[in-house]
């Protein structure tokens, strides 16, 4: 159990982590999600006692990290893949870590075997690919066979096979009753591995919810319509009491009504349809929508290439319901910035 209480980190004027309060529970994979620069790594460093919090507190089963008498058999962490001396062999890297915690030498061979690096145990770490470095980092985290595991962006730079491996590894570790806390900036990755979700943006807590709830609340389904007789189609749908939203490029979007009913209505009025497709907003979109306000580093794209639903043709704030088009807040923020400039 990891408990954060009002955890804050300030670098001069900049607030990296802003009063974070949440709990990481055992037996499940908790995903820690946020865009780049949201403060995920800073939070993890404070958890591990590497950075001192400006305010607030983080405790592991009621203890500060530096009060743990045997940190590695208690909590294993992968911070970044290359946090090792490149001139040292994989075996010696793990050996010096094991020795610092009094873990027997035989265990080093075991974890090397677990991550599949036995064949290169004697090779220097600087010759390792990113994936191999990641595996070595994970071997270090597993060294003490700890009850809490923490991975900072473990799938970064891995090939599909490696991603698959890490996914199963994390699920397996959690199923054994361990606490698994894993950060990522990829919602799709979390959707596959995490049971619980903590989302932060610009250091602030945006969501602390179970994965199932998040999916239920955020997977918006709608129907996309295209027709050469758009005006008439709108009238027909309006008469039927259906709210239609123009999504730009001549497409209409309808929330909460099935595609079959819409098709029947159009056929009844004798209208030509070029497209009638049920759509499911992905979790990635839900995540982007959630964090759009807090994304720190924007790429400046021209309006023409803006994502659908937020194009220049879309009426501002016109998308009804609980789920506006993704990136909309992004655009609004951009507009505010431009005005300010």
């Amino acid at each position, binding site marked *: 159990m990891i408990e954060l209480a009002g955890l804050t980190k300030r670098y001069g004027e900049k607030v990296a982590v802003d009063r974070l309060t949440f709990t990481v529970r055992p037996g499940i994979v908790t995903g820690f999600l946020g865009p780049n620069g949201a403060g995920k790594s800073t939070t993890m460093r404070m958890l591990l006692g590497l950075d001192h919090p400006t305010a607030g507190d983080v405790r592991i089963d009621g203890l500060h990290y530096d009060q743990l008498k045997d940190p590695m058999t208690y909590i294993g962490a992968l911070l970044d893949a290359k946090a090792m001396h490149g001139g040292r062999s994989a075996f010696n890297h793990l050996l010096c870590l094991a020795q*610092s915690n009094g873990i027997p030498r035989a265990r080093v061979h075991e974890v090397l075997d677990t991550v599949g690096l036995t064949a290169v145990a004697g090779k220097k770490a600087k010759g390792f690919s990113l994936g191999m470095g990641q595996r070595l980092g994970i071997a270090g985290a597993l060294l003490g066979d700890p009850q809490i595991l923490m991975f900072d962006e473990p799938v970064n730079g891995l090939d599909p096979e490696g991603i698959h491996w890490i996914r199963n590894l994390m699920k*397996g570790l959690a199923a054994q009753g361990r606490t698994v806390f894993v950060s990522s900036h990829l919602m799709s990755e979390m959707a596959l591995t995490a049971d619980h979700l903590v989302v932060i943006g610009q250091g602030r807590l945006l969501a602390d919810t179970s994965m199932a709830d998040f999916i239920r609340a955020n997977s918006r389904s709608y129907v996309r319509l295209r027709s050469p007789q758009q005006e008439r189609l709108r009238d027909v749908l309006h008469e039927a009491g259906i709210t239609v939203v123009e999504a730009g490029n001549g497409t209409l979007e309808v929330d909460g009504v099935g595609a079959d009913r819409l098709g029947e209505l159009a056929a009844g009025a004798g209208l030509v349809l070029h497209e009638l497709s049920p759509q499911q907003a992905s979790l990635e979109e839900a995540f982007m929508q959630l964090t759009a306000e807090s994304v720190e580093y924007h790429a400046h794209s021209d309006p023409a290439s803006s994502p659908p639903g937020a194009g220049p043709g879309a009426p501002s704030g016109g998308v009804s319901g609980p789920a506006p088009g993704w990136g909309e807040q992004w655009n609004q923020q951009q507009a505010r910035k431009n005005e300010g400039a």
Partner: protein
Amino acid sequence: MSTPHPQQAPAPVPPQGAPQQADPSGKWQGLPGAAYTSPIPIKRTHLGNALASEWTKIRSVRSTMWTLGIFLLLVIGTGLAIAANTEPRDYADVPYTLPAFFGLILGQICLITLGVLVVSSEYGTGMIRTTMTASPQRHRVLAAKFLIFFLVAYVVSFCAIGLVGLITSGMHEDGSVEAAPMGGTLLKGSLYVSLLGVLALAVGALLRHSAGAITAMLGLVLVPAILPAFLMISESMRPIGEKMLDYNAPNSLSKIFEIDGGTGGTSQLWLLIGVTAAAIVGAFIRLEARDV
């Protein structure tokens, strides 16, 4: 070299009761929600663990072999070359370890480099975060680094100076002159260069940057040896210049080795001990206060 394959199946033959903690095949036995307890016995970690770890670290990188190899080559190589070109009567009132002095003047730079690298390479590579995560008691890690480095540096320089002394006395000891005893030069000479290395380690821990720390240390060793020539020009600066001349590192070593009727260099040694102690205290304070 082959790319490692992931363990799709659990690793076979786990040693006595070792956990299959990373079984990715989905056949684990754990109950969801049941807290996991590590089967590895919980032991309170202590300085001994940190010392073992630091010993593994220092012996498993190439830079240690290079710097100590060059140090030995310089001290023993130049020492023997000089010994071969001296005569028995040259050792009247000087110790037989004297030829080692010339190699040490250059060799001390090797120990400075190693001292800096012991700590700054961890900051440069990011290893420090892994180290401090494994041992959150930061002072223990730094203390282990100081101890292990000091022991290595002291043993190596003691052996190098001693070897030069033994060979030289074997070559030139014929009873014609009475040489000064070499025990003091052996103990104090190796202590002096080892402490320079420890000071470099402290500076490395303070600056956290290899090139910066090595440059600072070279400045500390060389500037007081060069500057007095200029300070002596001005009458008001003369006292400072004289002190520098007296206490700079090469001159301190020459005093320890009884060159020009040296005084044994005890006060120079005390100065270095004082400076090093201050730097060590600074390094510990900064280590605890700063983020890694």
